[in-house]
């Protein structure tokens, strides 16, 4: 899996390619994500291409979030379709991840965070 990041104002936006992120592709996704998980990194995963995510796909995103949080970075999500959103809510991951409708909203959330400080 090839992941490319688009950098806007210190925030990297990664569009997850393909229609599914499931047990069949989660391993690939995890290794493709590894180079982006650096200290203090601000990442947005754009899921708008995806039609389906299973628990393994969700677990891979969770793993990335935990690693980033451990290094002072953060990971936010955007562009979920309805079934993916339903899955996140079912296992209550909408309380663990910050989820936005669009990449712009996600990016803006960092600037409002820093504005608050």
């Amino acid at each position: 899996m090839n992941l490319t990041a688009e950098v806007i104002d210190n925030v990297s936006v990664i569009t997850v390619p393909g229609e599914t992120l499931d047990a069949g592709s989660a391993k690939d996704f995890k290794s493709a994500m590894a180079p982006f998980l650096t200290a203090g990194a601000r990442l947005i995963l754009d899921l708008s291409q995806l039609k389906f995510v299973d628990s393994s796909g969700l677990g891979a995103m969770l793993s990335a979030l935990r690693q980033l949080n451990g290094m002072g970075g953060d990971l936010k999500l955007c562009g979920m379709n309805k079934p993916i959103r339903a899955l996140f809510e079912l296992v209550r991951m909408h309380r663990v991840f910050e989820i936005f409708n669009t990449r712009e909203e996600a990016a803006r959330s960092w600037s409002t965070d820093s504005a608050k400080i």
Partner: protein
Amino acid sequence: MTGLQNPSLTPAEELIFGRLQPSLTCLAELDDVCLEFESETGARVPLLGGPPQGHHIPFFIEDSGARVHLYFSGRTATERHLLETTVRTLLEKLEVEKREELLLDELGSNWESLEALYEISTDVLRFGDVRQALSRLIERLTSLQDGLAACLFINRNSRLEPLTASYEQPAVIEWSDLGAITTPIQESRSVVINDPAARATGDGSLPWDTATSLAAAPITSQRQTVIGLLLVWRNDQRYILDAPFSRLLEAITHQASMLLESDRLNRTMLENDRLAKEIEIASSIQQTLLLGNAPKMASMEIASFSSASQQIDGDFLDFLQHGDAVDVMIGDVMGKGIAAALLGAATKSQFLRALANLAIRRGGLPSPVDIVRRSASRLGERLISLERFVTLCYARFDPVQRTVDFVDCGHTGILVHRKNSRETFFLRGDDLPLGIYLTDEWHQHTADLMPGDTFLLFSDGVTETRRPDGELFGDDRLMECLENWSSLGPDLLLEKIRQATDLFRDGGSQTDDFSCIALRIPVGDRNARLTCHQTAFPAELDQLGAFRDWLREYAAGLDAESLARLDAATVEAFVNCVRHGALPDGNAPVRAAVHGYESHLTIDLRHAGPPFDPMSVPPPSFDGSRDGGFGTFIILRSADEVVYSREGGENLISITIMRR
């Protein structure tokens, strides 16, 4: 119960007939066997098979003029013997059931007896020592009426040793000293004799030799062997000992039996404290009198569970099946101990009486509110005078009318999980418990019942399960259990609720009775399968895409939301098959089948591998601390029904999604 179906039978015979018929289904496969029921008046009604021909064996039904006739042809001597024994055993079982009900009925109808028993039980609890408790029991019994004398004998080395008596220096006696009483007691029956001439009187050396009336009841061990008897007599020709007295005596000996039995247990297990004994006694009452068994029905699945706490509060429940519908009653007596348990039994019996009375009078099934009104009118004043009250929910589940009619008298309400709309909510009434005010105002509520619904009735012991830090389990956690586990069906759901509350209690003791009933309405008719498609996939994760495409082709017609749930559940199940189905010589394929029904779709996935038990899967962590462990949870929450089973050495998971 829908009125009298056989006009030639008396109501009593109708009852026997109704009881007998379902228990005979075990003989239904023998096509040359015929059974007929003959009423006292000689009218014959077929029970099973027909026509009557060949060998003929008549059986008499005890305490009634009715008979059962068995006919069969051919068969070896052994088979004949087996057949005869089977029918005889079924009739004896019926007899035992009838006696138990009679006892309950008498207890419920005779409030004086009940009150006496109630006081006695409350008293007995105060004594730690069994001898002291038993002598108090005798003392109370003899104070019920003037001139009563009593002695409790225990069988030791084939002689009867007095354990406690209402008179001084009771002597050891022989069984034969009891005369005409000996045989019935040894056969575990109670006996009343009001005519001195009817029993062989002794030589005047024993205190009861000159008695005008005499009653005795056997004391039995848990294994139903006679270990002693309670003898009561009176020397006063103006009074006789009547049938209600005899029932009271039976109830008291029942209690004495339990006291002795638990004392025996106590002595064999010294670490048992008095509390444990109480539980033993009270749960014994609970098991025999308070808890009904969930019926097996084609129209719905029902499971029930009850466990007595250290301070029994008299939870009771019962079921009454009529056709495809079922009445469920669940209640809780405020108060603790054996007394509360007995009061629960009396309340339950009052409801059954009310139902039977109304049914016979009107020739049809009375409504829940009529049953509650009649029972309340008979119980209310008495409960108030005892300063006790009873919370209760009486509900009728009718899958044909698709309704639930219920009366909720201060109970916990009915919790519903509706797969069709994925909602979880309470059905509640607002009537007060029985025993608060005297009122005729009771309200029946009607709610929808839909395919895929699971209903949960429970006692407050469930939601009031306490964590060591004082936090209560509460409605929300119970609702979550229902949402998480109801797709596995009532039996496993109740097991999960038990697990969850045990876990929550975290080693603390159970302070309340704990009762729970779950009913599930099937998603649809499983006999009307329209389509079936089967295929196999290599057990590789890269097959997920192919599997989803294949399934989508046959899942046409599902709405988007249901389709997404089907996707979520089946993908997790497929991944589990691949991950846990590893065999030493490589993975066997995953075999998939999709069955289309009018009302639902069922997807079967079969794969080799070690047995899988969904009950052993730990709950997922929702705080993001673990990447995995969500699979089974997602399957159970996304599907409408899930069945895990083992077939031919393979795991089979069946996932059902309703069409909406």
